[in-house]
């Protein structure tokens, strides 16, 4: 019998630690498929964040390091400068990348470090139990915005793709979602493209993936997908924000 579907080779056999309905599993799979497709697993070094995805170091079957909270782009910079022939990626959540690690991501992008950033935006701090993230939507209730995020005192959610796209240097920035098969196909394409940009030496690439957190949103997986489509996509529009290839 012909095998038509299998686990990507770039994933280990360690079972995922993620909650039911969380998108991390899909994102891990898409990253692993991209590494498989490009045949770069053995040349890849991944940088895991602090947060739910800290365990990514167990799931990807390539060399991995766990960075300090928010510092993955700096750690990746150090690795890439020593091993320019390896493929280096970071995998970061919204608290990690857009709050405590804001300086690191902005400057890695501005230097156009030849790294790929997988940015998972689920509008909440997952691992610590559902506190407000920089990407938490206006009015969204979390542990630390119990009456809803009030922009008057808590600011508006940060749009990372738009922010980084104001810089001249980054090579490729795209935002994708995973709530339906068509989106997943697009997301896979974007992730693969991001790695291809790095392989071609074009510079910094980042894919933001809108993601669910059913546990901390207090919704079922199905409701979470609906909530994401209804609330997140209008504020975080999907699409390509930067593509230096097409400019030049």
């Amino acid at each position, binding site marked *: 019998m012909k095998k038509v579907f299998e686990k990507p080779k770039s994933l280990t056999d360690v079972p995922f630690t993620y909650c039911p309905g969380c998108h991390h599993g899909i994102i891990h799979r898409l990253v692993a498929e991209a590494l498989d497709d490009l045949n770069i697993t053995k040349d890849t070094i991944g940088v895991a964040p602090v947060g739910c995805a800290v365990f990514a170091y167990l799931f990807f079957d390539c060399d991995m390091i766990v960075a*300090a909270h928010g510092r993955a782009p700096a*750690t990746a910079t*150090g*690795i890439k*400068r*020593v*091993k320019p022939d390896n493929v280096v990626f970071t995998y970061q959540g919204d608290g990690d990348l857009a709050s405590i690690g804001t*300086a690191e991501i902005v400057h890695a992008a501005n230097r156009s470090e030849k790294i790929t950033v997988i940015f998972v935006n689920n509008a909440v701090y997952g691992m610590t139990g559902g506190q407000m993230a920089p990407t938490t939507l206006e009015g969204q209730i979390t542990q630390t915005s119990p009456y809803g995020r009030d922009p008057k005192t808590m600011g508006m959610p940060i749009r990372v793709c738009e922010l980084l796209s104001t810089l001249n240097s980054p090579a490729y920035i795209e935002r994708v979602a995973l709530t339906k098969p068509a989106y997943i196909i697009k997301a896979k394409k974007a992730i693969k493209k991001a790695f291809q940009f790095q392989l071609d030496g074009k510079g910094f690439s980042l894919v933001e993936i809108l993601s669910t957190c059913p546990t901390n949103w207090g919704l079922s997986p199905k409701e979470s997908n609906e909530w994401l489509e209804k609330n997140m996509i209008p504020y975080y529009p999907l699409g390509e924000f930067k593509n230096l290839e097409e400019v030049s």
Partner: protein
Amino acid sequence: MVDRLLMKGNEAIGEAAIHAGCRYYFGYPITPQSELIAYMAKRLLKIEGATFLQSESELAAINMVYGAAAAGGRVMTSSSSPGISLKQEGISYITCAELPCVIVNIMRGGPGLGSIQPAQGDYFQATKGGGHGDYHLIVLAPSSVQELVDLTIKAFNLADKYRNPAMILGDGLLGQMMEPVEFKEFDVKTIPSKESWALGSSEGREARRIVPFNLDPIEMEKINNRLKQKYLDMQKEAECELVNMDNPDIVVVAYGIVARIVKTAIQKAKKEGINIGLMRPVTLYPFPYQIIGDNAHKAKKILVTEMSMGQMLEDVQLAACDKAEINFYGRTGGVVISPVEILEEVKKLLA
């Protein structure tokens, strides 16, 4: 024939690092070590395959060091007191991950933003850990520009030997002063290979993981036990210079630039018929408890002098409190102790 060069302390550290095969430097400007970052920029940007990177912050710099060390690079960062405080989280991670690197602290007056003049107020931070968790750095305390060179090279070698960060603990005066220096031959082939543990291509081997945590307390305790064993093994590296210790009237204990000043005080004292002995720890971690303990009985009184409120003092007390009366004289805030002041203190104690 080795050439003698006239070099500023900060630049001598940079040249020594490059001489020792350091090809990766990440740092952020801060007085009084800015000549070092400038020197690294000037030199490394002209070496193919090397990296000089002025990072966005001290936090980024130390985490770049973390990545570069994990990838097997001979890597250094440098800063001065407030900047070193910012690096502490990363230093703790690097120590837990057991990666080698060199960190230079050209100390200035503190606490807070402090001053930009020389001080030794970061002794506790450097020798007792500094960041969170149980760990130590290897800490070397040069006392001349030549020693900045020799101990920088040694720091890289010890860092590799123990897979632990090593710190050069200098001060603004050492960093700024000029002296003739020699660079002894260094064979980069003697640098240990990192192939067996560094991140890179996993072709033909299992994927490697550098993980500075473990949520299982029993496993995390094992990491601490392994580190502890390493620190015990390191104790044999303890070094202490002994000067004029044959028959001293009093023994002074000082490190770094202050020990240098004490040497001038020793000469002045001789003219007045006073014999001052000096014990100068060269390694601050491991601290030469044994050497100081063994020699403490040579005079009734010990004077510990530092450009701090008394930090190394506590280690001297541990080493010698049962062997001599231990006194302290310190200046802080960026005030440099003078030989005359030391002599005055000695006279008071001998009166």
